[in-house]
């Protein structure tokens, strides 16, 4: 059974930085990491880029990324840029 290595809440005001910090924590992580995106009402290209970088790093470390609290609008953007398949989603 996978253990949750990290649970990170991403704040809309500094989402890129938050994701970068979370990416650094991946170095020692195992199993699964959960990102809480419930404060993100909208997503911009910078955050998308940071999310993609985070997903790439998680892949390298064989860490599963679970996104929590994703709004419908943000979920649609992730589908449009074909990033949704890189993550698992928790309600």
């Amino acid at each position: 059974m996978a253990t949750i290595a990290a649970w990170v809440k991403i704040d809309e005001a500094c989402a890129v930085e938050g994701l970068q910090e979370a990416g650094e924590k991946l170095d020692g992580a195992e199993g699964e990491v959960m990102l809480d995106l419930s404060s993100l009402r909208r997503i911009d290209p910078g955050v998308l880029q940071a999310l993609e970088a985070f997903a790439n790093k998680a892949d390298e470390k064989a860490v599963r990324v679970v996104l929590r609290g994703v709004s419908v609008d943000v979920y649609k953007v992730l589908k449009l840029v074909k990033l949704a398949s890189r993550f698992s989603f928790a309600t």
Partner: protein
Amino acid sequence: MIVKEAVPERVQTPLATSGLGAERIAYLDNLVSQARTAAAVFSQFTQADVDRIVRPMVLAGLEQAQYLARLAVEETKLGVMEDKVIKNMVATEFAYNYVKDKCTVGVVREFPDRNLVEMAEPIGVIFSLTPITNPTSTVLFKCIMAIKTRNAVIFSSHPKAWRCCSEAVRIMYETALKHGAPAGVFTCLDAHTLEDNAYLMRHKDVGLIDVTGGPGAVKAAYSSGKPALGVGPGNTPVYLEKTADLNTAVVDIIVSKTFDNGTICASEQTVVIDNEIYDVVLKKFADLNAHICTEPETQLLERTLIDPRTGFAQPMAVGQRATDIARFIGLSVKPDTKLLIAPILGVGRAHPLSVEKLFPVLSVYRAKSVDEALKVCIDVNHAGGLGHTAVIFSRNDEVIRRFGEVINAGRIIVNSPGSIGALGGVYNDLVPTFSFGCGTGGGNSTTDNINIFHYLNIKRLARRTQAHMWFRVPNQIYFNLNAVENVRHFPSRSTLLVTNPALEQIGHVDIVRRSIPPQTHVHVLVIPDAEPEVNVVMQGVEALNFYQADQIIALGGGSVIDAAKIMKLKYESPAADLQELAAPFLDLRKRVVQYPTEKTNQARLIAISTTSGTGSEVTPFAVLTDKGGGRKVTLADYSLSPDVAIVDPQFVMSMPKALTADTGIDCLTHALEAGVSSYASPFTDSNAMQAIRLVFKYLPIAFEHPHDVEARSMMHNAACIAAMAFANASVGINHALAHAFGARFGVAHGRANALMLPYVIAYNAAVPTKFMPSPYQQGYVAHKKYATIADLLGLGGQSIEEKVKNLVTAVERLLHQLEFPRSIAELGITREEFERAIPDLTKLAFDDPSWRSNPRMPLLSELIELFWMAYQGRGVPQEARGLQPQAG
């Protein structure tokens, strides 16, 4: 100054991408990826967000209009700087004026009366090719359209207009970005090759290709397999008709043809002028500094400006001044010459100047008649201009209309300049654009002026509609004993009383006659007691005409009343085609064939029923037998409904037992089928339920005690009430089966219904193999309605299944009481005979319109199964004996 090869030749652009290296592909992929991200992010923007970006972009375009125009002319060496300024301003200001209040996010249009809402979905990434002729204006226009619709655009400009286009994209992009647009929303290829274009046209993340350019690029876009807006060249015919305001026409043509040196593809190419005004018009052109070419000069233009190999205009002349063109080809003209006008004698390869010329050379043709003028315009239209633009100057509305009918052009500009007129919003109310859809004639998918709605996917939210229903019956129904006396209230000069021999014999006709006012001339027509035939109906129509009748009284069962309905129809509307009126239909309100409303005669129809089953006195149906054609014709329309119905039990007191049972079960079947019909409504339900209650209570009494006035009276009422239900909710599969079986084996209709009834109830109450589309019902309710009927009859039971079972048993018990055979086999029909008939029976039943309102859609295999169940017969009736209907 003449620029050689400013426009590429019209050759098909190949879609090959083999020439691209890995580095170039990575570059192109990256462009698309950026655009895709931008478009995805953009999808979250609200209408207010979008509108906040559009306005400053428009202002930036207006501010930079002159700068961009100058860049365009310097780089392309085409057109007129001042005119390009105007183009840039039209592309921004006029476009904005059109789009500023348009909804392009979320709900864009609502149709409350249709329960429809249209919503916008962005396309995503648009790959856009822009032309050399209108480079910066096209870019400005497309950027505004894209932002308004939340799309990202990758621009690929014409190689010889790259610098000015890139600058236009930069200005738009920086302004958009500054006001909140997502990064990457516009990109422009750094330089491009045909391979780049081919690669991007086929890229999986490009949603739409929007090409404004030559036929090669348009064809490549359409060949890519992607959705494309491809807008290419034209060849605009102009008809200058003799009633036109000539001064306005001549100036408009000069304005248009010289605008940006004729680079707009909607500009005038060949002007067809009526003979009567030809010389005057040419004089007016000459007075305004147009050079009218002599024959040798025209030949010089043909030799130098048209490529003899392709038949197309030489690219070097595109967008050049008339004086420069003249100097280049060695034609002597005045220095202030605006336009070269070349008279031509026809259209086609033999007349080279009849093609599109995107420079200030105009061909003119002298037409001797309107017909000749229209034909020449058609020729020009078909010589490369299909679907694009055409122009007419005339004050004759009929000629304008004819021109519009015969010319295939997305824009037909009337009494205004073609090029600026086609752009929209300046001389008319066309949608402003810089891309002209040319329809299928031009190999395009639209004839529209391309604008925001072509940059959107429109989603339609279609809510379930509450279709209007109806409850229509004769507005006067008289019932109870001696109700026939009400006939005296209907004044008539001449009445035709239609009846059958038996009723005349037993004195029923005399009873009716006694109720007819004495001053009325009464003529009796006795017809056979059988389903009416065409010749019988026509005899009746002859009689009606002969006696000039204003009233028909139908005294009889269904056959007589049906005959009278059709007589009335043919008497009032002699041209009515009965075969055509019998055409099948699915929904009464959408039927193809309409019943006549214009009447040459008028007659009131009073229906007096003498059986308690068909209810024809209140229904809109009539069955006619066409023996010549070997078929039955069922007519259905509310105009067939009698005007007055008389439900007087004195006419049914003498019905024999078998007829009482048959007609009574027909009535019960009407009520049960209307009750579960997919067209059932609270109005029909109330009638159906009451009729069922009356049948269960009074039919056994009327059967056993024929002289019981109350039972006869109530059964007569029940038949009429059940008919009011099925006249509006129709019947179902039981009737379809019974019609087929009864016709094949000569079994009375009510008896045939009885043989099928228990199985049909059980069938309809089970979960359907196939549900019937039923916009009038909320879910599947047949089983619940049967259960309600069981409750109404006091049959007991806890669950719905139990109640349905009790209803089936109660029906079986009633049939037993009425001495019906238990099976088709009991009628003496052998198994072999029945088996041979099954294919025909099934086909007939399935073709029968009755089941269209059945709650369950029958499969052919299910029809066969039902026929066999009826053949084998129902179970032992003893088990039903304990179930007595309780309802009073």
